[in-house]
C-alpha cells in the first residue's frame, strides 16, 4: 500500500474511533486540575480573588461537574485539558458588556456565577468574602482553611414526608426519606440530580420537589400502587413485618444492597446473596455459630450447613428431625456453650448422632 494512503487511512480510522475510544471526562483526576486560580484580570475597586478551584471541583461532583462553570465544555470532551476546558477569561472579555446582550463581560460572568451560590447560601454579599481585602476571609488564608467544609449549612431533611396524591382510591403516600437515605443507602444525587446545592443546603422552608416519574419509578416501576399508596400515613419500613425476615444481630448492620440487587430489592427475592459470607463452613469463615444461640459442638461440629438447614436458607430454622426423634414443642431454647441439653433424649435410632 502506498505509505501516504496508509497514513491517511490510519488517520481517518484514528479520528473516527477517537470519540468512542476515549473514556468520559473524569474530573477526579487530581493532577489535571489547578488547585487555586487567581482572578485578577478585572480592574476594579477591590482586590483580586483567590479562587480555590479544587474545593469547588469537589463540590461540583454532586451534579453538573465541570460544566457548572465551564459551560462551553463539549459533550464529547476528551479530557480535562485545554482546549476542551477553557478558563473564563478566554471567552469573556475583561471590559464590561453592560451595553449589549449576549456574552457577559468577565466581571459580570464571575459575579453571576459565584453569587448564584454564595448569595443564596449565606446571604453573604460582602465583597470581602471573595476579594482579597485585609481582614477578610481571602485576606486571611488561615481563616479560609477553618471555614472549609463549614460554609454551607447542613443538608437536613425530615424523616418522612406525607403526600396526598391525585390517586382517588388510595391517595396517601408516605415517603420515608430517612429510610431511603440511611437504610437503603441511596445517594442524594440519585434522586436530586439537577437540583441546585442551595435547595438542600439551607433552610427547610422550601424543599425541592422531586419528580416521581424520574425518581421513584427508577426503583418502583414494577411495583403495584399499594407499595407506596395507602389510605393513611404509613410507618417506616420494618423488614420483619414487611417481609417476615428478621434482621437478627448478624444482619442488622448490612445495607439492603448487601443482600438485594440494587433497584430490585422491593420485588426480587434474595438470590445467592448469602453465599459471599456463608458459602464455606461457618468456622472457616470465622463465624461463631453460637452467636445464633446454638453452639455447634460434638458431632455438630462436623456438619455441613445444609445438613441441618435443608432449605438452603441459612436463616431458616434447622431441621433436626433427621437425627432427633422429636422436635421441641415450645420452640428452640437457646443455651449457648454450657452443654445444657435442650432436645429430649430420644434419639432417632437410624442416626449415629448420639450427642446430648
Amino acid at each position: 500500500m502506498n505509505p501516504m494512503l496508509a497514513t491517511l487511512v490510519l488517520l481517518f480510522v484514528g479520528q473516527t474511533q477517537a470519540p468512542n475510544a476515549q473514556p468520559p471526562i473524569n474530573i477526579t483526576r487530581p493532577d489535571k486540575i489547578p488547585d487555586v486560580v487567581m482572578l485578577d484580570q478585572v480592574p476594579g475597586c477591590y482586590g483580586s480573588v483567590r479562587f480555590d478551584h479544587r474545593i469547588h471541583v469537589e463540590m461540583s461532583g454532586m451534579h453538573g461537574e465541570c460544566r457548572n462553570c465551564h459551560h462551553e465544555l463539549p459533550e464529547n470532551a476528551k479530557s480535562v485539558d485545554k482546549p476542551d476546558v477553557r478558563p473564563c477569561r478566554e471567552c469573556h472579555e475583561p471590559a464590561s458588556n453592560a451595553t449589549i446582550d449576549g456574552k457577559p463581560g468577565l466581571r459580570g460572568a464571575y459575579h453571576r456565577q459565584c453569587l448564584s451560590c454564595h448569595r443564596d447560601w449565606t446571604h453573604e454579599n460582602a465583597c470581602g468574602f471573595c476579594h482579597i481585602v485585609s481582614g477578610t476571609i481571602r485576606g486571611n488564608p488561615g481563616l479560609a482553611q477553618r471555614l472549609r467544609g463549614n460554609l454551607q449549612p447542613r443538608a437536613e431533611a425530615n424523616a418522612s414526608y406525607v403526600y396526598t396524591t391525585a390517586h382517588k382510591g388510595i391517595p396517601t403516600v408516605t415517603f420515608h426519606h430517612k429510610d431511603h437515605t440511611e437504610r437503603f443507602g441511596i445517594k442524594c444525587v440519585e434522586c436530586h440530580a439537577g437540583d441546585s446545592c442551595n435547595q438542600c443546603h439551607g433552610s427547610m422552608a422550601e424543599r425541592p420537589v422531586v419528580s416521581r416519574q424520574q425518581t421513584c419509578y427508577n426503583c418502583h416501576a414494577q411495583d403495584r400502587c399499594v407499595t407506596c399508596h395507602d389510605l393513611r400515613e404509613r410507618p417506616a419500613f420494618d423488614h420483619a413485618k414487611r417481609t417476615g425476615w428478621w434482621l437478627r444481630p448478624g444482619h442488622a448492620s448490612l445495607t439492603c444492597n448487601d443482600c438485594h440487587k440494587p433497584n430490585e430489592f422491593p420485588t426480587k427475592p434474595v438470590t445467592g446473596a448469602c453465599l459471599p459470607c456463608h458459602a464455606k463452613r461457618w468456622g472457616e469463615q470465622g463465624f461463631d455459630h453460637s452467636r445464633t444461640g446454638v453452639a455447634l459442638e460434638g458431632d455438630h461440629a462436623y456438619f455441613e450447613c445444609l445438613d441441618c438447614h435443608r432449605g438452603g436458607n441459612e436463616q431458616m430454622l434447622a431441621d433436626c428431625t433427621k437425627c432427633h426423634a422429636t422436635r421441641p414443642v415450645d420452640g428452640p431454647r437457646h443455651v449457648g456453650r454450657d452443654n445444657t441439653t435442650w432436645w429430649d433424649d430420644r434419639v432417632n435410632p437410624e442416626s449415629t448422632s448420639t450427642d446430648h
Partner: protein
Amino acid sequence: MNARTSSQRTPKSGSDAHPPIDTSRRGFLKAGAVLTALTVGGKSLASDGADGASKLSQGRMGVLVDLTRCVGCRRCEWACNDANDNPHGKLEECDDQSVFASLRRPRTDQFCVVNATRNPKADPSPTDPPIFTKIQCMHCEYPPCVSACLVGAMQKSPDGPVTYDASKCIGCRYCMMACPFERLTYEYDRRFTPRIRKCELCSHRTHDGKLPACVEICPVEALQYGKREDLLRVAHERIAAHPDKYVDHVYGESEGGGTSWLYLSARPFEQLVDVGLPRLPDKSPAERTEHIQHAIFKGAAGPLGIAAILTTLHFLTRKGGHA
C-alpha cells in the same frame, strides 16, 4: 455641594428645544404674558407635553434591569450618588443590608434606591433570597410630568431621558403630582432655590460617551444600557429562552405608555407593586388629558366658540333688555 446644576449638565435638552429666554421668575412671567397674548388659539406655552413624544428618536436609549440577576449589593446607589454629587460614604458602606428592612423612595439627595421584596410564600430563608428592585425616574415615553409642567422645565429628550431645568422651574410641583411612579422629589428645605431632584439617566455622562453610573458599576450586569428597541428585543429573547425563569412580561414596555427603564422578573410583577413598580394602564395619563385639551383648543375652536356664544348671548340679552 452641587456645583453643577441640572441645567448646566443638560444644556441641550433645555436650550435646544426652546429659544433662550430670560430665566428669572419675573422675566418668565413677562414673557409668559406676552407670549400668551400673542399665541393664537390658546396654545400652551409648554408645548412639549405628551405629544412631544412623537419627536422621540428611533434610537432612544433606556436601561434593562434583570431582577433575576440583581443581588442587592447597592453599588448602583453609591455610584449614582457619586455621579450626581450627592452625599455618600465609602463604597463598603453599601454592604449594610439593614436598609432593606423598610421600603424606601428616592430622596432629594439620592436618586435611586434598591428595595427588597421577600417571598410572600415563605419565611426569609437562605434558599429564598428576596427580589431586589432598583427604582428611580422611569423616563417615561409620554411623561406626565412634562405634560403637567407649566413652564417647560421638564423636557423629554428625543434620545430618552426626561430632564429638568431648574432655571425655568416655578416650584409648582405639578410634576410631582403627575408622576404615576412617585419618583420626583422636591427640596423643601431649601429656602430660595428649591429644585425638583431626580435621575436624569446620567445625561451628563452619556453625552461624554460613558455609561450611566449605575450601569457601569453593576457587578453582575443586571443593568444594561442601550437602545430601547434593542433592550426590548433582548428582553423578549431572554424570556423566550428561559420561560421557566422569567414571567412573560417586560415591565415598562407598556406601563404608563412605556418607560425607558425596563424590568425582567422571576416573580409576577404584582408582587413588586409595593417596592415601586405599580400597575398602570397601557396609556399614559398625559395622553388622555392632552387629547381632551388639544381637542378643545385645536384651531382655537374652544375659546372662539365660547367667545362666540358669549358674544351672542351678550347681544341677545342687550337687545332683549331694550325690548
